[in-house]
């Protein structure tokens, strides 16, 4: 029978299936960070259990870490305890750990691919919803809660039920200036934040084929914002080239074996999807969110919606609530929205290609006087590479702060936060109320759109600049 890529990965990891569909799924790789793991390790200790396969697990600190000078450690006591707890847990249970001063430290979803830890056909989990990022390699990757983190540590499996298959195809070519971020924001705007609930999305079509691995990661990263359990892109030569030679990639004879297996990972021609969506690349525009849900999207040439034109009462109520929180009037042109902050970074857009694109826009220009702008590289290795290319100098000359790697202002667990009513053009993934700081107002955009907004002090159409 013809199978989807998801079906193939699911079936090759199925340890056991009960009559009600409850399944035991084998997990190949487990990423761990400091925020969602302490209670899991505590649980193992309380029940005298071990980590089944320490070698399949990789841990890193990212959520709590300061992005300023780290020579004196972490000032916030609770954050410091959480970071030290992970270090101790990894030592006690024999898990590899990238600590605060390790040059390989970075956001968990940046370092996985960077180290070659992420490979096609794997099942990968992490106590973080943006684990969907790793689906860019044709791996089934999804976020789990802390109880499940404990379950995977103890058993190398997870109790799961099978998801449905959702094909999203974007065909043709994207206009210049339109990025992977605009593609995924448009998809979420189209299907809504619950549109993917119960599904694994496979991204198909020319646009995704043409994307680099990093662009595919941006798209898969935000699958969770569409409610999907995971996102997938079938692996191809680009995927294999990206992995080859990385520290944890298969070597020698194993590389050849892996390649042979990876080449079988695609959706069969006649496979059936439970749902399909077809979009055209040429129709996608630079996109800005105006509200407090990632589905609240508008074109850069669009306007903030008018709740009075909304017929659905529930939707009208949430538009009103969002506009009130965001401090926006109905029908305001997106290009008239002025900003106070710019955040470039996160597991969505904190990779080297993102930084290169930003540097192209800001080179020789100055950040607007009314704007504070920071660039937070996704990992220590991204930072080193950027510095090797002189990107840090371009950013600093323009007036950007150049920071140490971590999750930073995407969720503001460290000191990088918005103040009440501050408005931010952010390359991150969530614009929820309070996400970047209590009362803070987040507009999600692509790195080039954020860069242009930093220079102009307001949103502008990137297509008119490049």
């Amino acid at each position, binding site marked *: 029978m013809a199978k989807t890529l998801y079906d193939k990965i699911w079936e090759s990891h199925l340890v056991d299936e009960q009559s009600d569909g409850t399944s035991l799924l084998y997990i190949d790789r487990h990423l761990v960070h400091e925020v969602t793991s302490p209670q899991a390790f505590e649980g193992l200790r309380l029940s005298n259990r071990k980590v089944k396969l320490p070698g399949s697990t990789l841990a890193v600190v990212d959520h709590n870490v300061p992005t300023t000078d780290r020579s004196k450690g972490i000032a916030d006591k609770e954050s410091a305890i959480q970071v030290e707890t992970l270090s101790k847990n990894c030592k006690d249970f024999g898990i590899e750990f990238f600590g605060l001063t390790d040059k390989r430290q970075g956001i968990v979803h940046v370092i996985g691919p960077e180290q070659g830890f992420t490979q096609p056909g794997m099942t990968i989990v992490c106590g973080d919803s943006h684990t969907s990022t790793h689906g860019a390699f044709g791996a089934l990757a999804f976020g789990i*809660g802390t109880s499940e983190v404990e379950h995977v540590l103890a058993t190398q499996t997870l109790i799961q039920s099978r998801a449905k298959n959702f094909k999203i195809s974007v065909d043709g070519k994207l206009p210049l200036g339109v990025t992977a971020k605009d593609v995924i924001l448009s998809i979420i705007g189209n299907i809504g934040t619950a549109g993917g609930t119960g599904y694994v999305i496979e991204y198909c079509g020319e646009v995704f084929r043409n994307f680099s691995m990093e662009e595919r990661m941006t798209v898969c990263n935000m699958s969770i914002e569409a409610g999907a359990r995971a996102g997938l892109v079938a692996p191809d030569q680009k995927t294999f080239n990206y992995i080859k030679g990385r520290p944890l990639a298969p070597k020698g004879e194993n590389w050849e074996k892996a390649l042979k297996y990876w080449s079988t990972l695609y959706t069969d021609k006649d496979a059936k999807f439970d749902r399909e969506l077809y979009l055209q690349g040429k129709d996608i525009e630079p996109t800005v969110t105006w509200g407090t849900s990632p589905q609240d999207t508008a074109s850069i040439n669009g306007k903030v919606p008018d709740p009075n034109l909304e017929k659905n009462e529930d939707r009208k109520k949430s538009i009103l609530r969002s506009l009130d929180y965001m401090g926006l009037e109905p029908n305001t042109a997106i290009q008239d929205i002025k900003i106070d902050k710019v955040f470039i970074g996160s597991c969505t857009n904190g990779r080297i290609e993102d930084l290169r694109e930003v540097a192209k826009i800001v080179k020789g220009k100055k950040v607007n006087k009314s704007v504070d702008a920071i660039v937070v590289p996704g990992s220590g290795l991204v930072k080193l590479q950027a510095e090797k290319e002189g990107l840090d100098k371009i950013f600093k000359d323009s007036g950007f702060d150049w920071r140490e790697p971590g999750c930073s202002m995407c969720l503001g667990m460290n000191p990088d936060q918005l103040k009440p009513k501050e408005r931010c053009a952010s390359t991150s993934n969530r614009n929820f109320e309070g996400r970047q700081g209590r009362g803070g107002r987040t507009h999600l955009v692509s790195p080039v759109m954020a860069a242009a907004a930093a220079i102009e002090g307001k949103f502008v159409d990137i297509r008119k600049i490049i």
Partner: protein
Amino acid sequence: MEKFTKLKSIAADLQISNIDTDMIIPKQFLKTIKRTGLGSALFYEMRYDEKGNEIKNFILNNAPFNKAKILISGKNFGCGSSREHAPWALLDFGIRCIIAESFADIFYNNCFKNGILPIILPENQVKELSEAAKKNKEIEIDLIDQKIHKGDNRPFDFEIESFRKECLLNGYDDIALTLKKDSKINSFEQRKKNLTPWLY
């Protein structure tokens, strides 16, 4: 995990769609290394003003709803981050059952690991329960028979996967259940080592 069989309580009605896990428990409370004590931080930014004083018109600040064990909400409850701190905070506050039109996937899963029952109902039934909640009516959840009694003779039925139901009814530790399949897992792993040796 505490067993869940029957639950009778008034219900707090929070009719907002897309309640995300940042709303349920904001970031500053994720720095804990414990599971307990998060109830006071539940819905923090909706519940307290910037000075930390209770906001009077927020439902969970007012009697009798500050003792509610059931929460009724809108579509896509629990979207966003995977933080299990969200169900921990709800549980610590006293919520054992959430009724909504739909739930986000990871949050839904996390509830079952903590003895919380999330129930999905169609829009009209959620609306009816929401009206009953507003009138301070007690609602009874019967997991054994999969029924919701609301003081009339028309109880609502609800669906739940049989494995999840078993776990809730008995308060099972699912790691212990899985470890019973240890030999199956090990032989699966052995086969995998032959098929995909580069992973080991």
